[in-house]
């Protein structure tokens, strides 16, 4: 029997090839994700241990605030502590680190980096054991007006050693001479960040940290353990300052990076699972069709005495071999896919540091096992069914299975969809991890339920869909339509595979459009200013507050407010605290204050959104304990506002935030003109002021909304790109079904060719059949995706997602692309069919 399995596998090579491809792609993405995160993780771990290899202790503020992005912020220390540490006998060297925002401007006047990529400035560390940077060209920075760049930033800035560039910081833009280039360990540009290095006092000025340092690194005498060093240092440390060993610091940094990496890993794995789920349909379809085509042969085996168990074993044997083979190939191809993923993420601004490729057996094994188990499990149902073929079937022609319209199917399908809908609703109402699980499981159920219902709806729907074909394409169109609905089960499960990928595409498309129009609406309603000066930086950096001050002096300007923000936390949850010139903020934007007075908000006071007031049970006049890097600040609730889109959830005056978090810069500056001002003239004057701020972009409200939508589009494109694989797999599935169906119809094709169908007509028939299936699956997906999107908008209506928008043009485009993809999927099967030898075809058994 085992030999029969092998032989049958050989005979169906080409038919199984596409199944194998579907498995390979899914497993490949999974393995690629794991290899990539293993590699990045290892690279970063090595980097971190290198950096702190000779650091025995790190001194820092004991209080910290979690940004929620796997990073913690701490208040700076007094620089005098460095000298005190040097008095400790066991300390050989100690030096302060400073870090802040600094951004290079290219010689062409463009800001380098920004957006999601961090723009770091550091103080140069002179103690070699403590300095992670290595000069690769020129010299270290040694005084005012000198800067050292990382090689990538230098290249992007078009600057070499000896050139002068402009540097943006919390101070006014200033000129610096590039005196050298330095690399971070072995890496040009860690995490895509740009790095600018300054002499320590220069850096302190630029970052608004005069007389302060962020952390202090310590080297102890030779032979002393790090723990002993920390103990020795502890005696001189003031309250609120702690020392940890270099090893502990290494572990901490590694861990926080692994946590951030974990997000990326989960994000990518989700797409791999979608791809595998789509692959399940291909596997199921292929085995079902192959088994149906072989039912005579199987019945014959049964008739000559093979037991049912033997038939089952032989069929499962086939899936075991295919599943194992394809999964191994997929896992190995993950190495290549990892590089592709890295490049793709890089293209979307997510730079991951890698050094070589790390291949962990555990990761490969996980990928192989996943693919293997999925294949075998999915193949069980068709195999069991086939093993039930009665021996007598060998003697008669096996009728095509058309039992598509069963009550059990309808009821079952509806029940599963119902279960999915319940989970979706529950998931949308839940928070955090539960929400993701609920929504994910709900979506899975809906997809499965629709797939179960598929055969029932496939026939009427595709018939309707293909209605114009006979009119447009005559008899070839008629044949295409009839072939597409000939076997509803097959059409349904082929289309279901596409439905999943397209469903997700439809969902994010509809959601993004709704987010976009909700934001537009809120901005339209709330922003009354005439001009927004945007820095385009999200994580850090922006404009020196000097700019807002200068703009407010301009004739014709009525009100100006910069907008900054700082990381805080309340009740252990991250809080993004914004700040504005509260006395005029309401003239420019309307946060819809419902209680209290925003204009008079002073130091030690905060305005909060109604949402947060409810969540944290806060009322006007209450005190909220807000943790910042500098420590816990008790803030009095001075106003409560409704609109959390323009001002966020927490809003303070600049003076208030300066008191807890010095050195913040303006991310944006909102400007309102006087009623009688000539807007063009005012803008021209402001343009003059921003000339030296290379990162400044002047936008009116329309342009500002466009730049917001560009951001959403970028994220959308990344998700599209990752969903592409699931869609490609579904297309492979269509090609596969077509190929298997054509194989089944060989004699019919021979007949058609004999009575005068040209190759072109035959190709066209198969092409249109493919287009019908592809468009059907796509429409199904878009309907589901739209319903998901709509549900999300309903659920999040109270959180600002108010407007449901159906992006009709985009959805139509998706359908057209699907039709084109259908054509693509038909190419190979149609070509093969058109090459059939007519005589051989008529005479096949």
């Amino acid at each position: 029997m085992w030999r029969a399995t092998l032989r049958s596998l050989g005979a169906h090579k080409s038919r199984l090839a596409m199944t194998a491809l579907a498995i390979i792609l899914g497993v490949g993405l999974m393995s690629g994700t794991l290899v990539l995160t293993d590699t990045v993780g290892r690279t970063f771990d090595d980097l971190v241990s290198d950096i702190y290899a000779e650091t025995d202790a790190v001194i820092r503020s004991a209080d910290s605030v979690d940004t929620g992005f796997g990073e913690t912020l701490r208040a700076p220390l007094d620089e005098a502590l460095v000298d005190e540490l040097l008095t400790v006998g066991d300390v050989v060297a100690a030096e302060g680190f400073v870090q802040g925002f600094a951004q290079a401007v290219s010689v062409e006047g463009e800001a380098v980096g920004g957006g999601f990529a961090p723009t770091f400035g550091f103080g140069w560390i002179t103690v070699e054991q403590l300095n992670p940077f290595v000069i690769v060209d020129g010299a270290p920075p040694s005084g005012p007006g000198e800067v050292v760049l990382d090689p990538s930033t230098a290249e992007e800035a078009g600057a070499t050693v000896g050139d002068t560039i402009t540097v943006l910081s919390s101070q006014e833009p200033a000129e610096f001479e590039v005196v050298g280039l330095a690399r971070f360990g072995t890496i040009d540009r860690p995490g895509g960040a740009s790095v600018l290095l300054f002499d320590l006092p220069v850096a302190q000025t630029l970052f608004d940290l005069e007389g302060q340092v962020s952390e202090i690194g310590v080297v102890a005498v030779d032979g002393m353990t790090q723990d002993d060093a920390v103990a020795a240092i502890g005696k001189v440390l003031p309250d609120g300052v702690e020392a940890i060993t270099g090893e502990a610091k290494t572990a901490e940094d590694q861990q926080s990076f692994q946590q951030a990496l974990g997000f990326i890993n989960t994000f990518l794995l989700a797409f791999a699972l979608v791809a595998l789920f789509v692959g399940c349909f291909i596997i199921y379809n292929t085995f079902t069709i192959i088994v149906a085509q072989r039912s005579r042969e199987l019945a014959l085996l049964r008739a000559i005495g093979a037991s049912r168990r033997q038939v089952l074993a032989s069929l499962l044997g086939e899936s075991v071999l295919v599943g194992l083979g394809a999964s191994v190939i997929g896992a190995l191809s993950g190495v290549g896919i990892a590089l592709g993923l890295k490049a793709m993420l890089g293209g979307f601004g997510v730079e991951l540091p890698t050094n070589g490729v790390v291949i962990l057996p555990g990761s490969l094994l996980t990928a192989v096992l996943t693919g293997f188990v999925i294949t075998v499990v999915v193949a069980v149902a068709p195999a069991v069914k086939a093993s039930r073929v009665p021996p007598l079937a060998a003697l008669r022609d096996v009728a095509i299975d058309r039992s598509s319209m069963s009550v059990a199917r309808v009821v079952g399908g509806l029940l599963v969809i119902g279960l999915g809908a319940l989970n979706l609703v529950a998931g949308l109402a839940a928070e955090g991890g539960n929400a993701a699980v609920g929504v994910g499981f709900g979506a899975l159920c809906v997809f499965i339920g629709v797939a179960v219902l598929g055969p029932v709806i496939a026939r009427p729907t595709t018939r309707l869909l293909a209605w114009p074909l006979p009119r447009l394409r005559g008899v070839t169109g008629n044949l295409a339509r009839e072939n597409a609905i000939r076997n509803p089960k097959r059409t349904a499960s082929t289309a279901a595979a596409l439905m999943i990928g397209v469903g997700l595409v439809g969902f994010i498309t509809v959601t993004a459009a709704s987010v976009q129009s909700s934001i537009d609406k809120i901005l339209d309603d709330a922003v009354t200013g005439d001009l927004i000066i945007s820095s385009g930086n999200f994580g850090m950096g922006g404009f020196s507050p000097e700019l807002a001050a200068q703009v407010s002096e301009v004739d014709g300007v009525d009100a100006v407010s910069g907008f900054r923000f700082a990381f805080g936390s309340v009740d252990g949850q991250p809080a993004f605290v914004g700040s504005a010139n509260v006395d005029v903020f309401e003239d420019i934007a309307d946060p819809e204050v419902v209680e209290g007075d925003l204009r008079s908000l002073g130091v030690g006071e905060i305005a909060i959104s109604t949402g947060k007031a409810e969540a944290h049970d806060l009322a006007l006049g209450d005190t909220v304990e807000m943790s910042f890097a500098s420590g816990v600040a008790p803030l009095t609730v001075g106003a409560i506002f409704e609109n959390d889109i323009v001002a966020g959830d927490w809003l303070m005056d600049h003076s208030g935030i300066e008191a807890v978090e010095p050195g913040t810069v303006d991310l944006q500056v909102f400007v309102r003109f006087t009623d009688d001002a000539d807007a063009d003239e005012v803008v021209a004057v402001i343009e003059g002021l921003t000339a030296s701020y290379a990162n400044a972009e002047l936008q009116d409200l329309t342009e500002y909304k466009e730049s917001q939508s560009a951001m959403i589009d970028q994220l959308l494109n990344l998700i599209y790109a990752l969903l592409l694989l699931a869609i490609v797999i579904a297309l492979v599935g269509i090609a596969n079904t077509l190929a298997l169906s054509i194989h089944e119809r060989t004699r019919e094709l021979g007949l058609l060719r004999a009575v005068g169908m040209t190759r072109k007509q035959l190709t066209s028939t198969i092409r249109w059949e493919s287009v019908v299936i592809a468009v059907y699956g796509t429409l199904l997906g878009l309907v589901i995706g739209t319903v998901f999107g709509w549900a999300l908008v309903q659920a999040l209506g109270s959180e600002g997602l108010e407007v449901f928008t159906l992006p009709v043009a985009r959805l139509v485009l998706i359908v057209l692309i699907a039709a084109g993809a259908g054509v693509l999927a038909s190419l190979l099967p149609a070509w093969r069919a058109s090459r059939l030898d007519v005589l051989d075809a008529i005479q096949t058994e």
Partner: protein
Amino acid sequence: MSLTETPNPPASAPPGPLAARAEGATKIYGSGDTEVRALDGVTCGFEKGRFTAIMGPSGSGKSTLMHCVAGLDDLTSGQVFVGDTALGELGERQLTQLRRDRIGFVFQAFNLVPTLTALENITLPVDLAGRKPDQEHLDEVVRAVGLANRLDHRPSELSGGQQQRVAVARALAARPEIIFADEPTGNLDSRAGAEILAFMRNAVRELGQTIVMVTHDPVAAAYSDRVLFLADGKIVDEMADPTADRVLDRLKQLGD
């Protein structure tokens, strides 16, 4: 007019112009030890407006001859013509068009496209050519095959005899220059077979259709105007106005 119930045929017509012919047609399969000469220098013609039967033992090359003359297969050497067109000079596309526009086919089984209705099957070659069927002619053919109330049925809803009638109707509907039928009654019981054969004969008599039929059944051959006997890829004899008994006798001699 009834095409199906005419009794024995009248005497044959005098030799006329040829609808198709073969000249020194030779077809060799394989090479060396496994070489098979399916056709060995066959020269013959099929007169217009006549019903020709090709007979011979199994493996004598009947189907091969038919396939080659019908443009489904090519010769190793020699020439075949449909009308004045030499098939050897035609490309794949032209051959397809020739089959569609100038030739009709009736195979032994699986003649119909299962997804098309009886009527759609009948008009298939005309539809493929993108032409409008000649409605009057179509009505006549449909009436003649007696399927007027089954035209909307799919092949799976028709009996074997009905299916073959649809196949013959398809061959006739396009008004081809010549119809080739390979054992058209081979899968039918004798009654259904007789109906088909009588129908084909009347198409020749009354519509002036040219038909070439491959058969190994003397009773079927008796419906034709002329029988060609094939053995080992060569034409060994022919017989005008055959009867079943005479054909059977001749076959017995060939068998010796």
